[in-house]
């Protein structure tokens, strides 16, 4: 495993600038997730590290070594793609062993067997080693694809939305497993996704990408609690952060120049109306473990999480107050 560093990387495809002056260091043993919508430059960043694309400007180093001119095969990276690409005619065992059979590696059959079994157990596919890869469910195939990257011990794992084709339940299970495996192995891992839950739950640090630029880099708690601008604030959190004009809801101490207030559940206090109500419960979304209260205040809609046993009804008048919310200026930047 190794530290991987991007310095002032830019890459354009024709007129469109996919990555713009990107500087990012993934520390040895760190799990970094790049989060952004389609077209933000996530996949291009992975491909630049893997050597599948060449930067127009800037430097990629792996373990301190400049990768300029190094072919993909010479970079010691393992790539996991969104669509699992297994060898259909081979068993699970052979698929996992394949990267180890490269003549350059000169591993003994015993050594290969030991590594394959170790990894198969890790990704929980050890009971199906002799199955043809085509006889597996989607989730099992993706576990084999991840396993095939893990049998090698590269400098860095590069993963491009590897869980996005799976159903919600399996995705939840594999998230936990992948994080667990990465921390057990101490691997360096760069993972890209548009799914905020994956980023929040797995990353040591999240990088928020937008239009080819890295907007903010920090721990999930840091990005969630201290977003640098409106864009970042809106990327994380369920329900979506409430973005409301200054002056709409009382409470808080907006600094000079505040235009927009960002209020998550933890920034809102709700009290029973008692004559000085300023808001009304519009409707309640019962999600079982918790409820989303949809509220209306002077024509604006707000949503907040609530305990499912909280005694409110649609139509109830309430008093809504702010409690240390986030403040943003007219340029969308955070004001502290």
């Amino acid at each position, binding site marked *: 495993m190794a530290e991987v560093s991007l310095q002032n990387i830019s890459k354009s495809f024709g007129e469109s600038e996919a990555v713009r002056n990107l500087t990012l260091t993934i520390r040895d043993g760190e799990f970094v997730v790049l989060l952004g919508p389609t077209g933000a430059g996530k996949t291009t960043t992975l491909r630049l590290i893997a050597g599948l694309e060449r930067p127009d400007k800037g430097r990629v180093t792996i373990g301190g070594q400049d990768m300029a001119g190094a072919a993909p095969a010479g970079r010691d990276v393992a790539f996991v793609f969104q669509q699992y690409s297994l060898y259909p005619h081979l068993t699970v065992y052979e698929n996992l062993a394949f990267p180890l059979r490269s003549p350059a590696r000169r591993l003994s059959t015993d050594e290969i067997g030991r590594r394959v079994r170790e990894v198969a157990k890790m990704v929980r596919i050890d009971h199906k080693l002799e199955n043809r890869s085509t006889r597996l469910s989607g989730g099992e195939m993706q576990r084999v694809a991840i396993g095939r990257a893990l049998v090698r011990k590269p400098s860095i794992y590069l993963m491009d939305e590897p869980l996005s084709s799976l159903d919600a339940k399996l995705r939840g299970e594999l998230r*936990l497993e992948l994080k*667990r495996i990465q921390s057990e192995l101490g691997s360096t891992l760069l993972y890209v996704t*548009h799914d905020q839950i994956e980023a*929040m739950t797995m990353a040591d640090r999240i990088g928020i990408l937008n239009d080819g630029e890295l907007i903010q880099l920090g721990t999930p*708690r840091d990005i969630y609690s201290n977003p640098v601008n409106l864009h970042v604030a809106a990327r994380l959190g369920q329900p979506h952060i409430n973005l409301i004009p200054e002056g709409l809801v009382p409470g808080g101490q907006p600094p000079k120049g505040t235009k927009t207030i960002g209020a998550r559940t*933890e920034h809102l206090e709700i009290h029973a109306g008692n004559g000085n109500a300023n808001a009304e419960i519009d*409707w309640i979304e019962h999600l*079982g*473990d918790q409820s989303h209260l*949809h509220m209306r205040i002077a024509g604006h809609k707000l949503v907040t999480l609530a305990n499912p046993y909280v005694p409110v009804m649609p139509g109830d008048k309430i008093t809504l107050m702010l409690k240390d919310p986030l403040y943003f200026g007219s340029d969308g930047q955070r004001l502290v």
Partner: protein
Amino acid sequence: MAEIRIENLRKQFADFTAVQDSSFTVGDGEFLALLGPSGCGKTTTLRMIAGLELPTSGKIYLDGEDVTFNRARERDIAFVFQLFALYPHMNVRKNIGFPLLSQGVPKAEIKARVEETAKLLQITHILEKSVSGLAGGDRQRVALGRAIVRRPKCFLMDEPLGTLDAEFREVMVHELRELHNRIHATTVYVTHDQHEAMAMADKIAVMNHGIIEQFGTPQEIYNRPASMYVADFIGSPPMNFLKFSAGLQKGTRSVSVDGVDIALPEVRQDMAVGELALGVRPEHIRFNDNSALRGSVYGAEYLGTNQIVAIETGKGLLKARVSADRTFRIGETVGLELDSEKLSLFDCASGRAVKSSLYTEARHG
């Protein structure tokens, strides 16, 4: 608007029974979600209500009228499919008005109804725009407008949000429900996504292998699942099961799981010795160092306001939803306390819930 009543509905395709003996009623103005995995019979049920499939046996009543064998177009139903197709060469106004035009509605009335529909969907400002230039959300709204403008007796929707990305789906879930709150049209909505069903529906029918496993409000289904299948299908993460072997007598108020006594709602039936599963929702697990039920932290998933902590125990991996304030170390030993009043108990052989005070009393208020 209308009530939809289904009686003993059954659909057989050669050897395969897609829907077995389903009976339920969707009240006037109610929003029902038919929820289940692919192949459970939910779409077949919807297609029979629409008249796109004929039942093998059973009856379908629309507003009291037997429509079981009526043609689809005689049913006054709007069917919204997964992929919304708009006429690319027409503007928004013409797309929405088209169903009325083909019914021969007078021009002035078409204009009034299109405008009323656009107002309802908050798309008045794009009425004259071409649909080809519209963003995804507006396209969906136009497609909905085309269904609403006919003022059908009910809406049938087959995974209309299935192809959208997660973030946008959440926005549309809220919009659809708010639209329902405004027009109160009887709606049957098919989905495999439990979150969509919980968020939008007044009633949910959870289906499995052609059978309705449970029919009830989202809260009933979540808090008092009738079977292990339902308990596992609903919730994210789903209900945890702690399996153990025991017999039960009426009046039992605690069980012993691996030598740890766990209090639970009073059992209301006798059960011979067999395998049982204690069901506990993630948010009903609390950390308590003094508890005899112990485990070690396997992983923690931070979600902002709260977090999911996975704990390895003698009964397998349990997931707890707790506040995000506390941080956990992997491998740390923790004590777990379960919220006794909210536990379910299941018979593993049949998968059905064991009767208890939670299930019986709650129903009467």
